[in-house]
C-alpha cells in the first residue's frame, strides 16, 4: 500500500514537470509561422469582400462608383480590425 502511494506521488510530480515543459514550449514551434501566414490574408480578404459588396450595391442602386469607394474604405477598416484582433489574441496567449 505504501508503494502504491509513493508511485502516485511520483506520478504527480512527473506529470507536473511535463506540463511545465509544455507551457514553456508553447508558441515556439511551427504554429508561430502559421500565425504569420494567417494575418497576411486577413487584411486582403476584408478589403475584397467590402469592395465586392460595394460593387454589387452600386449595380443595384445605379450609383456608380460612389458605394464601391465607400465600401472599399469600410473594407480596409474591417481588415485592419481583423488583423488588430488576431494580434491581440496572440499577445494574450504569450
Amino acid at each position, binding site marked *: 500500500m505504501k508503494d502504491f502511494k509513493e508511485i502516485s506521488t511520483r506520478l504527480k510530480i512527473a506529470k507536473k514537470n511535463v506540463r511545465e515543459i509544455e507551457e514553456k514550449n508553447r508558441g515556439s514551434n511551427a504554429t508561430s509561422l*502559421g500565425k504569420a*501566414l494567417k494575418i497576411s490574408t*486577413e487584411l486582403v*480578404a*476584408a478589403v475584397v*469582400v467590402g469592395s465586392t459588396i460595394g460593387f454589387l450595391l452600386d449595380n443595384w442602386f445605379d450609383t456608380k462608383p460612389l458605394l464601391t469607394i465607400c*465600401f472599399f474604405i469600410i*473594407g480596409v477598416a474591417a481588415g485592419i480590425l*481583423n488583423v488588430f484582433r488576431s494580434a491581440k489574441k496572440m499577445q494574450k496567449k504569450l
Partner: protein
Amino acid sequence: MVLNPMHQFEVYKIGPEINIGGINLSFTNASFFMAISAILILSLLFFGTKKKSLIPSKIQLITEMSYALIAKMINDTAGSSAKAFFPFVFTLFMFVLFCNMVGMLPYSFTVTSQIIVTFVLAATIFIGVTIIGFIKHGIKYLELFVPKGVPIVLLPLIIVIEIISYLARPVSLSVRLFANMLAGHTMLKVFGGFVISLGLLGGWLPLSFAVALTGLEILVAFLQAYVFAILTCIYLNDALNLHH
C-alpha cells in the same frame, strides 16, 4: 506544354461525361485524388486502430498522435463545450492534410490548389458556425456585431464594419489555403523548368533550390491544414461562447 508551370492545375475528366439536370457531374482528376486521399485516411485509421497494443507500432502511433493533436487543439482554443465537434474538425484536418500531402507526390494533382474546393470547405464551416451560433444563442447571436462601449453615433458604421469582417472569414480561410498551395507548386515547377533549360552545366543551383523548396512545401502543407483546423476551432469558440 510540359514546361508550363500552370499546366499541373488543369482539371480534366476521367471516363464518360455525366450530365444530370444540366449540371456537369463528370468524374475528374480532382475527384479522383480526393477519393485517393479519403481512402488513404480511412485505411490509416483502420489499420492504426486494428491492433490496440500497449506499445504502439508506427502506424498506431501516427493515428494516436493525430487524434491527440486535434483533441488538444479543440480543448485549448474552443473549450470543453466544443468536444462534440471533434469528428468534424478531425475529418476536416485529415482531409486537407492528406490532399496537400498527396499533392506533394510527383505526377499527382493537388486538390486544394483549386479555389472552389477550398471555398466550399470554408463556406461549409462558415454557414455551419453561423447556424450553431443562432441555435445556441438565438437572436442574441447578433450581439457579435455590436461591440460593447461604442458611442451610439458610431454604431451604424461599426456594425457595417463588423459584418464585413465577419463575411471576410470564409474568403480569408479559403484564399489562404488555395494561394499557399498554388504558389508553392508553381514555384516548384518553375525551378524544375530551370533545371531542364539550363541543362547539365548550370542546372545544379535550381535543382538544389527545388530540393529545399520541396522540404518547405511539405512543412507548408502540414501547416496550412493545421491553420485551417485551428481557425475552425476559433470560429466555433466565437459561436459557442459569444464574447470577443
